[in-house]
């Protein structure tokens, strides 16, 4: 009896911390296999820059998955928007880049409405709708670009993908250090305040023993990342965009009606509808938000590469979806967090980056990535089945 109980706890412990474990294993293995190339200041900075695009997609992809839907078109859609931005900048150089950004967002809102209409109001399966639009987006991309590579981009768009925070002193990345410190202080202050309030409301037993190590770990991690980036080029705007969007959407998902409804729809669509939630409208809103976030990712992407191609964004939806699942989003809906999804996607980006550094045969890269998704889903399914069983046995 006691023996089985001990086993149970081990799995739960493993599952709850799987993200950290995966990160440690991946980072450790790559450090060895790449002969120390992986954990260099330069590579880590690159990794964050490359991973930012997919991670931005994952911010709202995870909400879409939480509602029990999906978006398979995100990658090709990103490619198309990147091409639109690049074409305008190259062919109509006089258009200010802020206007280009606004045009891209306008297109995003229209496509978001389009997806939301089919999925929300026509109640068609999102898998099929976005599978169809994925091809449409690819076709549009090829048509408007004529298959050419278009670039370079400039102005804000280039900054979004490739720019770094300016320095005050001119010799050090001082702003990065200051911002990093502020973030860590704010994080600790908020977490402590939140926990204190929970305790006051009687909703949390004094779990400081559990909370403090977690808080310390995250703070140290943030400090390490800050110092690493400081010693290279500092915080890139892409990273800041990723960070800020993550915080905003995360806060929205936890503290607004819209966020609540997203989880309710995924947890039990029928009950949500009977509770007075306009499911169609909330899904429409979500797809519009998602499209705008993906559009932001598209700008970051084209800014970093400085040119758009017809192959742009290919497979990005896969990385983002896998990242969500790795980060604890339930593919069946109802459960998951934005922060987890972003962390999961960054780990997937690390995986891609590491495999490239190792010069691994692309064939094996595909197999590994598919395998990771399967493993993550299997782990999630096993954990929730096990949970269902434990509850019954009480």
């Amino acid at each position: 009896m006691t023996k089985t109980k001990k086993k149970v706890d081990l799995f739960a412990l493993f599952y709850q911390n799987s993200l950290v474990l995966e990160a440690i294993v991946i980072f450790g293995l790559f450090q060895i296999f790449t002969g120390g190339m992986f954990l260099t200041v330069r590579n880590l900075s690159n990794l964050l820059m490359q991973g930012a695009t997919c991670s931005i997609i994952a911010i709202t992809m995870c909400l879409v998955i939480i509602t029990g839907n999906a978006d398979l078109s995100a990658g090709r859609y990103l490619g198309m928007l990147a091409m639109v931005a690049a074409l305008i900048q190259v062919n109509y150089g006089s258009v200010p880049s802020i206007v280009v950004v606004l045009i891209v967002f306008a297109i995003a809102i229209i496509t978001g409405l389009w997806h939301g209409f089919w999925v929300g109001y026509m109640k068609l399966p999102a898998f099929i709708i976005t599978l169809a639009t994925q091809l449409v987006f690819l076709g549009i991309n090829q048509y408007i670009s004529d298959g050419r590579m278009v670039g370079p981009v400039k102005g804000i768009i280039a900054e979004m993908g490739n720019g770094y925070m300016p320095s005050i002193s001119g010799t050090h990345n001082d702003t990065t250090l200051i911002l990093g410190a502020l973030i860590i202080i704010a994080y600790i202050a908020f977490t402590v305040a939140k926990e204190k309030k929970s305790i006051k409301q009687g909703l949390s037993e004094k779990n400081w023993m559990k909370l403090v190590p977690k808080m310390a770990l995250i703070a140290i991690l943030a400090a390490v990342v800050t110092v690493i980036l400081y010693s290279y080029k500092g915080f890139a705007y892409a990273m800041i965009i990723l960070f800020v969007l993550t915080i905003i959407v995360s806060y929205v998902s936890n503290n607004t009606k819209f966020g609540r409804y997203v989880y309710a729809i995924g947890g039990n669509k029928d009950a949500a509808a009977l509770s007075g939630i306009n499911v169609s409208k909330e899904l429409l809103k979500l797809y519009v938000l998602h499209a705008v976030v993906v559009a932001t990712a598209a700008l970051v992407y084209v800014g970093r590469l400085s040119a758009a191609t017809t192959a742009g964004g290919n497979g990005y939806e896969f990385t983002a979806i896998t990242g969500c699942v790795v980060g604890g989003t339930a593919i069946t809906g109802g459960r998951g967090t934005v922060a987890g999804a972003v962390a999961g996607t960054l780990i997937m980006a690390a995986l891609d980056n590491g495999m490239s550094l190792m010069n691994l045969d692309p064939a094996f890269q595909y197999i590994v990535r598919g395998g990771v998704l399967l493993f993550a889903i299997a782990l999630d399914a096993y954990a929730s089945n096990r949970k269902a069983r434990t509850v019954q046995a009480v």
Partner: protein
Amino acid sequence: MEDYVLQMNHITKLFPGVKALDDVTFDVRRGEVHALVGENGAGKSTLMKVLSGEYTDYSGELILNGEKVSFKGIKESEAAGIAIIHQELGLIQTLTVCENIFLGDEVCQSGLIDWDFEYDRAKELLDELKLKVNPKTRVGNLGIGQQQLVEIAKALNKNCKILILDEPTAPLPEDDSENLLELVRGLRDKGMSIIFISHKLGEVLSIADTVTILRDGQTVETRPAKEYSQDTLISGMVGRELKTLFEPRSCPIGEVALKVSDWSVFDGINNKWIVRDINLEVREGEVIGLAGMIGAGRTELGMSIFGALDDAITGKLEYRGRQRQRFKNSNEAIKAGVFYSSEDRKRYGLVLTSDIAYNASLSSLDKYINNGLFINRDKEYGKVKEMVKKLRIKTPSILQRAGNLSGGNQQKVCLAKALMTEPKVLILDEATRGIDIGAKTEIYQLINQMAAQGIAVIMISSELPEILGISDRIYVMREGRISAEFDNSARNITQEDVALAATGGVTT
């Protein structure tokens, strides 16, 4: 020594927070109809699930034909000759009668289904049950009574020795019920043992050889059926005078809160009227009961008023003294002050994976929004805590997952959700289904409190005692129409009055 085909000794089964079965003993002889009666939540279904192997984590012993057994799943109990036919039929509507009969038991010849054999055998079984349908008919095209016979054919095909019928006649019209009972007698005479679960006590007394009464998860007694009358059965099931459950209300009854006239609902998919020409009103501070059999259209009536039904609706709605358009969706209804709490709390009531606070405030989040955007947790949690206290929801914390609560507490969370919207009209659909007697009593008290606050309550229920005990007026529905309306302000209407109207004239 009696010839027992089945003995269940000292069965105890726990659910989180509830002792569903407490040392239950239940023995069935060969070739008898053994009725199992008890109120909802008495543990009948749980006991049958233990028998059929759906639950494996119970204590006690199961003896089949003198041998101790323990089943790890339905497959094993079926192999041992036990078949269960649930209240909700387990047939696949899009498959044919023959395919359903052999589902999971396909007869194959070198890997291919032997259709000739299957059709012949299906025909044979259907003939035995005097069911004249082609085995190639899709089950979805059959009436509910015929579908039930197909289920029985499926059980016969598995060579079952013990057949469990869970509320078999509940959805059936009178003629079909009579046929079914006749059939059950025939099967018994061939030596089969039948466990018969029913709420219709007249039926129980007419068909059963032996009766076992369960109450609150315990066996009350087992005696030959002829020693019982309806009254002794009821007092055995309830265990106390019914009247004490329902305290009298003295609150004044006010203006008409909600009134529908010529209200009809047409189900376009199945091409039939499910609610027809309903005229109904409910006043402030009044509790009206909506009685009728399963499938009489009560749920559809409630959901259509609430705006939660996609079917075509016609009719006029008068709300708080004013004619208005029908509610287009549940959101509009809730904003106006109407709330419908579903009979199926797992499917339509709760987000089981989320916590109590989340569920309770889901329909009334507007009240807890700051600056038009962000949720004010302090205010929300404060209100939820108040409701948890008021409704006496047993939970360690308001952050407990709804799925971990017992049925009674889940129901109370549904009620909390309803009350937090501050409704003027509250439609409660089977609000006490499947919960124990203690929680029921508390819910009745709550309904009384709501009425005292001036809330108009429409109580849909299949449990006549509760309809009779709590309603000021009673509407009875049958086949989509209102077949009778009773003034029950003196609580003088009897079960027979209502049953008569619900079944259409023939007393059971």
